[in-house]
């Protein structure tokens, strides 16, 4: 099992150079059955990551470029009257795929955004009074331009909460960039990626996440982190119970990726910035900075 995971990470690493941490986070997010929000400038490899992930996991993959004139039906699908059968037939939208890349989600109107986000939460779609389940596994990677960019609709906090993690890729390292310059073609690499795992294997991996042991000492630490986020005067809004559960779940997936049957404080700390960064709020300070500070203030062992 561990071999598969490291192979997956290595495969994606060939396409997305020097971003092992982010790749692992994305994988952990998927294993924890959560959705991923990638926030970065254009051209940093967001699409590449999503594509590579879909390919290496053998998932059906669709991509939607969000625009401001998009309607919910463009994502969910529509019922169209067919003359020859004399009936309405449902045409599935792009949401009916195992891995959906929602590119630049903040460019679409809130209406469309919320249609997608509801589908993400419920893992099913109700159209014309009929409930249709989405494929299993269902994993959304949404990308978002940083909010300073013009012509965007900010995702409200309640909807940010639907994403298990928010990560950003950042500029590549010098070595990675040099490799790019020297002619390594990610697209060609992408085409070569073969699926390392099938749907069955992925489900098994996901169920293994729940079996990672969380000891009392670790839960104490988690509890203190959550309490700190709620009580600290720096945080206007603390971690919700859903946020705390997300943190635990993501940390478990992270521990599994690192081939461990139990959680360590490192696991919590590794996923904390991406899980809590978009959930914490404060006046003026970025959530990520809050998380950094929180990690330094809350001790691993209660003194």
């Amino acid at each position, binding site marked *: 099992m561990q071999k598969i995971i490291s192979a997956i990470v290595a495969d994606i690493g060939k396409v997305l150079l020097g971003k092992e941490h982010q790749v692992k986070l994305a994988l952990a997010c998927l294993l924890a059955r959560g959705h991923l929000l990638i926030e970065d400038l254009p051209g940093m490899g967001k699409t590449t990551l999503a594509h590579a992930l879909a390919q290496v996991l053998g998932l059906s993959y669709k991509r939607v470029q969000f625009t401001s004139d998009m309607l919910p039906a463009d994502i969910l699908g529509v019922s169209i009257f067919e003359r020859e059968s004399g009936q309405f037939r449902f045409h599935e939208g792009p949401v009916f795929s195992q891995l959906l890349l929602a590119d630049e989600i903040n460019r679409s109107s809130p209406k469309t955004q919320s249609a997608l986000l509801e589908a993400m939460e419920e893992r099913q779609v109700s159209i014309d009074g009929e409930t249709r389940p989405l494929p299993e596994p269902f994993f959304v990677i949404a990308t978002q331009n940083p909010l300073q960019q013009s012509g965007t609709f900010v995702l409200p906090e309640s909807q940010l909460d639907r994403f298990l993690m928010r990560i950003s890729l950042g500029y590549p390292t010098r070595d990675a960039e040099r490799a790019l310059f020297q002619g390594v073609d990610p697209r060609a690499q992408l085409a070569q990626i073969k699926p390392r795992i099938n749907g069955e294997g992925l489900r098994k991996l996901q169920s293994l996440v729940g079996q990672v*042991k969380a*000891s*009392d*000492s*670790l839960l104490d630490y988690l509890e203190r982190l959550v309490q700190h986020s709620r009580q600290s005067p720096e945080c206007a809004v603390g971690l919700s119970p859903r946020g705390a559960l997300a943190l635990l779940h993501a940390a478990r997936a992270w521990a599994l990726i690192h081939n461990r*049957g*139990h*959680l*360590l*404080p*490192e696991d919590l*700390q590794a996923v904390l910035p991406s899980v809590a960064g978009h959930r914490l709020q404060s006046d003026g300070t970025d959530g990520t900075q809050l998380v950094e500070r929180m*990690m*330094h*203030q*809350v*001790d*691993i*062992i*209660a*003194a």
Partner: protein
Amino acid sequence: MSSSVSQLQSLLPRESLLWIFAAQLAVLLPHTMHLPVWLLGAWIIAVYWRLEVFRGRREMPGRMAKLVAVCLVVAGLVLTYRRWFALEPMVALLAVSFTLKNIELVSRRDALLSLMLAYFLAATLFVFEQTIPYAVYGIGCVVIITAALVAQQGRRSARPGRALGVSAKLLAQAVPVMLILFVVIPRLGPLWAVPQNTKAASTGISDSMSPGDFSELSKSDKPALRISFDGAVPPPEQRYWRGLVYTHFDGRRWSEPGAADGYPSWGRGRSNRRAYNGGNGDGSERELPAVGPRYRYQIIQEASHNPWLFALARPHSETRGVRETGDDTLVYRTPVGARLAYEVRSWPRELVGDSEGLSASEQRRNLQLPASGNPRARAWARARFEEGLDAEEISQALLSLYNRSFVYTLKPPALGADTVDEFLFSTRQGFCEHFASSYVFTMRAAGVPARVVAGYQGGEWVEQQEYLLVRQYDAHAWAEIWLPGRGWVRVDPTASVAPERIRDGLQSAAAEEFMQDAFLPLHKIAFVTRLRLQWDMINYRWYQTVVSFNSERQEGLLRRLLGEVSSLRMALFIGTPMLVALLLLLVWLKLSSRGPALPVASRLYLRFCRRMARAGLSRNPGETPGDYARRIEQEQPRLGPMAVRITSAYEKAAYAGDAQAEKQLRRLLRGFWPLRLSAQARASARV
């Protein structure tokens, strides 16, 4: 506008109003016994008005209405008391202002003010009464007022159970402080004389005696004196507690001129030589032998509103304010308005002797008779005198007359103008006063100086002779005659008629008549009698330990506790318990704030962290064990391998639930002394 808004916000909620009223009622209720009843009415009106304001049916009273209310109650006070500078009008004034505060009870500040006043008013209760029921009631008042204070905090704490609970807890916590303060707070004398309530009816023996007075007293079973002996106890027939000497007879009434005024000019007999007992007792030392048999006892006298005190014959007292008179009695400098305790030593007369003659003025005083009246008694006396009998023989003859044909009764027939004649020669039924009066009259008529002595006789032992309880019905009158060479000699004519009265007390002497008018004949039920004696004993101990705890006893107690009373020891005495209490509190806070105990592995790991910190590399807060181990590897490579092993053992123990790892961690730690290791390394490097 803004001020009215803020006022609205700070308006008192319903619960807090009700609590204040409850506290006020609790405080005012016992005061109705001393203060005019209309005060309670005024309070009810004020409360009603305030409640109407609360319901929004009425406005807060305006300035005019308040002024009228103040004028009304002040007028009421003036009409009730007609004078200001006494205790009761002052307390009444306080109660009135307390009452009127209700009609301007608006904000939280007013509420606090009213409750603070309530504390004060509750304390004034003890000016009037200091008995156990009042003390218990006072504590109850304080609990209620404190609960009302608690209730001002808001809705949740205004619930009765919670408010009372918090209040009781607070007061219970204050008990140790109260006890310490009770013992150590200096007992200052009153800074100003509290005007005593002189209007209160005096009880017990009065400054004059006319027929019927003592039978009135015999109907009361109220306690008068409580006497505890230190050493020898006089036999029952010697227990004559002398209070007052009557020398003046007007044909019906025996009295003592000047007695009621507190004896400002009593300069007769020995008293002008002895003056006050302020401390130099040289005069009395000359008179009374320093050694020899004497009785030492302490008397606790109930409030009588008269200045005279009670003691066995030839008393001497060192208690401040107590003075001896020429008639071998004791007086207090003011009327006894509250319970009074005084120490007395008495020398029996027959042992002291008094060979001094009677001065001419004393002679005159003790032979005084009205110009006319009671001719038969005078004739009888003259006849005895002409028979050539001396004083003792005349006395014997009179006593045997009593013995032969007289009846001792609590209900003697009424007497006309010549009281002595009628008693001696027709009715021949009487009570102690009749016997004493007729005896002294007759002796005087025979030319023997004689006087009536009033006081109490006997008493009842309480609780294995702990103290002698003397009640009002033990009031007694007897006589003293002057015998040349022997001085004043006590003669009790009652004893020759009803010796059991002297030996066993009134109850056995007048069995059927005793306490006949009592509403319930409780004295006939032995159990109830015992219960009442028990209750009296509790009261006595209460008074002994709490109420009469004055500066002398305070000093005595402190001396017993501390050995000597110095400021250092006092500071230690007060400071040590406080320090101990604070330390206990500190320890408790520390223990209770620690939360659940850490698991063993974490404690072991923290020990590792401390040792590393001493070696100069401490773990940052929030640094995970793994990161720390890596940092150690980097910065102190020699300790690295060990740190990594310890860390991995810790991780296994704490996070993987591996019981073996905990033992391993312990073992590893036992050998891990970074300082020693680095010292060895340095030593080996030097070699």
